[in-house]
């Protein structure tokens, strides 16, 4: 423990260590969630699911997939805008990695506890969509173009309810720091979801749209747009999108947990245990939300673009705005 503190006091060693953790944790989380999605969806449909790779349960399926992607040829279409096409997966991945900076894993365990943590998180999560738009434009494919533009329309519509429902929590907590929000819930003694149920639901719907998961997976929409903005991607560039999607699922869930479900805190667990159990609690809670996302994905069909927009502008934004006003009024009155 002392050794670790010593090491962390040196800026450069700490930086390298943190980078290593990030480089390991994102593919790991991506693979775990990817595997869970494969296996759970199989069970929901009375199938076996992956079972061959790695022997028991096919646990190595995602590793095998990763190896497969690296073996594939890196195809770039002739009409593609080459530099943009190449950069797009990196932008998507950068947005994903940057989001992990402000996730509070436990008391004091956070990469950087920014004062404007939640603001930063919501802003940086839009970077993913910029990457998607770049991919759609640069592919030189009509399906990709439609997919990219759909993603942009979706981002504009769903960023607002996402922010508004987070604003209500910020009003309750009185801080924008992610650790601060968790501590506010610890000191209040209850997770904010009890008072912010509406906000939580709106946040999750908007997060689903932001992640472009079914029922809002219009940018990909396999049956309409072939694979949307991913149509022309193959090999490790596709792998980047793939991992980013699953890692994003986790980070969005982690933010939702932090905002609404008490983050790393669980009532009845002493503070010294929380030091170590915090990350586990956060991961456990996030995985519950991830499971819900997987569950939705395999149950629901896809909505249409106009239905998606009317849901956002006619329902979610007014509801979340009203929620903000109500929360503000209560905060002032109480």
């Amino acid at each position, binding site marked *: 423990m002392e050794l670790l503190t010593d090491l962390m006091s040196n800026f450069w060693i700490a930086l390298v260590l943190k980078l290593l953790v990030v480089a390991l944790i994102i593919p790991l989380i991506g693979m775990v969630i990817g595997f869970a999605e494969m296996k759970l*969806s199989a069970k*929901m*449909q*009375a*199938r076996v699911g992956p079972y061959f790779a790695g022997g028991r349960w096919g646990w190595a399926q995602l590793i095998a997939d990763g190896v497969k992607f690296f073996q594939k040829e890196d195809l770039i279409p002739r009409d593609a805008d080459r530099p943009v096409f190449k950069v797009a997966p990196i932008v998507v991945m950068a947005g994903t990695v940057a989001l992990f900076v402000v996730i509070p894993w436990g008391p004091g365990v956070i990469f950087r506890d920014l004062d404007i943590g939640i603001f930063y998180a919501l802003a940086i999560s839009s970077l993913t969509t910029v990457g998607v738009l770049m991919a759609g434009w640069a592919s030189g494919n*009509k399906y990709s173009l*439609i997919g990219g533009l759909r993603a942009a329309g979706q981002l504009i519509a769903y960023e607002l309810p996402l922010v508004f429902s987070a604003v209500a929590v910020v009003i309750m907590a009185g801080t924008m720091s992610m650790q601060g929000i968790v501590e506010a819930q610890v000191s209040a003694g209850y997770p904010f979801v009890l008072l912010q149920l509406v906000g939580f639901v709106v946040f999750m719907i908007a997060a689903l749209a932001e992640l472009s998961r*079914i*029922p809002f*997976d*219009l940018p990909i*929409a*396999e*049956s*309409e*747009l*072939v694979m949307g903005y991913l149509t022309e991607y193959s090999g490790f560039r596709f792998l980047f999108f793939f991992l980013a999607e699953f890692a994003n699922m986790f980070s969005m869930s982690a933010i939702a947990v932090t905002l609404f479900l008490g983050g790393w805190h669980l009532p009845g667990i002493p503070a010294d245990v929380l030091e170590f159990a915090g990350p586990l609690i956060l991961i456990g809670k996030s995985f519950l939300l991830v499971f819900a996302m997987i569950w939705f*994905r*395999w*149950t*629901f*069909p*896809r*909505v*249409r*673009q*106009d*239905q998606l927009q009317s849901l956002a502008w006619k329902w979610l934004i007014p509801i979340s705005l009203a929620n903000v006003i109500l929360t503000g009024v209560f905060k002032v009155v109480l």
Partner: protein
Amino acid sequence: MSIDADTIRHLSEVSVSVELQTEDMTLNIGPQHPSTHGVLRLVARVDGERAFDVQPVIGYMHRGYEKLAEVRTYPQITTIVNRIDWVAGYANEIPFITAAEKIMELEVPPRAQYIRLILTEMARICSHLVFMASYPLELGAASPLFFALRERERVLDLLEGVTGGRFHPNFNRIGGVKPAYGSGSMTRKWVQDLPAGFYRDTRAAMDRVLEVCDELDNLVAGNEIILARTKGVGVIPVDVAASYGLSGPNLRASGVPFDLRKMEHYLPYDELDWNVVTGTNGDCYDRWWCRLQEIRESAKMIQQAIDQVPEGPIQAKVPKVIKVPKGETYVRAENPKGEMGYYLVTDGGNGPYRVKIRSASFSNLSILPWALEGALIPDIIAIMGSLDFVLGDVDR
């Protein structure tokens, strides 16, 4: 000055796009696309998400079956008609064989007729279950696929148990169903009647089919997103449907009780108690709902039929080498996709002189330019999927 059609179109385009100069994009949907059911190609002019002038391009799967049939003998032709609408291969054989029998004026034994009826209805269930599987998938819901296909496997197992083939049974012969194998010692060759336990297994499978219909009802029918995507989308009024020659569930969904099983007496459907399912609105949801109800009706029909299968031979007395006398006839039957007919011209030889195949999907598909005019891209897929065509049936 005469104003031709091109000028009018040009003027109208200018008048609507004064504020924002936009350019239409030609979108090729297919021939390789996840939800065109094979190799259909749609050429659409899209303005954002809205599509105009959708033109289907077909023929990528033309295999020339009408021509092939001219150089084959009658037993060989059942092999190739299996492959026209491959999700219900068995049902394709019936009208062809009935046409040949009609020219020969051959009486088919009742047992063979009942076996034909049972297997045809099984083929119908298989075909509709494939629709139940693929249609929600086209709307984005993946799970109904597995629920529907799981039951289809059971029904296909039964078909295989009787005929030996899952997709291409090739089980009908002129004069009945596949007879006891030729002459010879018959030491190990089997008499092709129903295998033991068929009735029991069929009853169990039909119960399961009815159960899975309820499951699909829960998964799909009440689902608000599905309703939003299909209700009122792709409405085909009765007169339009009739003018394009739609048939089968697509026509019945518009409210016309047009069912050849009731009208043409090619199999003993009259001896069973069943209803023609009709929809009311003629939209995508009704087409889906009609097919689900038809699965239920077919399952009930099979349950009744297996109680009534008469004893007796499965094959009428026919010569070993079949020659159909000179003549011509048109026989149509209710295939899962709609009306399937064979116009058969014979000249007394081993094989037909000419066969014209009227396949249901070809006519059903012809409505696409009308139905897709001005539809959104997601609705193109929803409408196209709801018509439930098979490209092998379109191109033949």
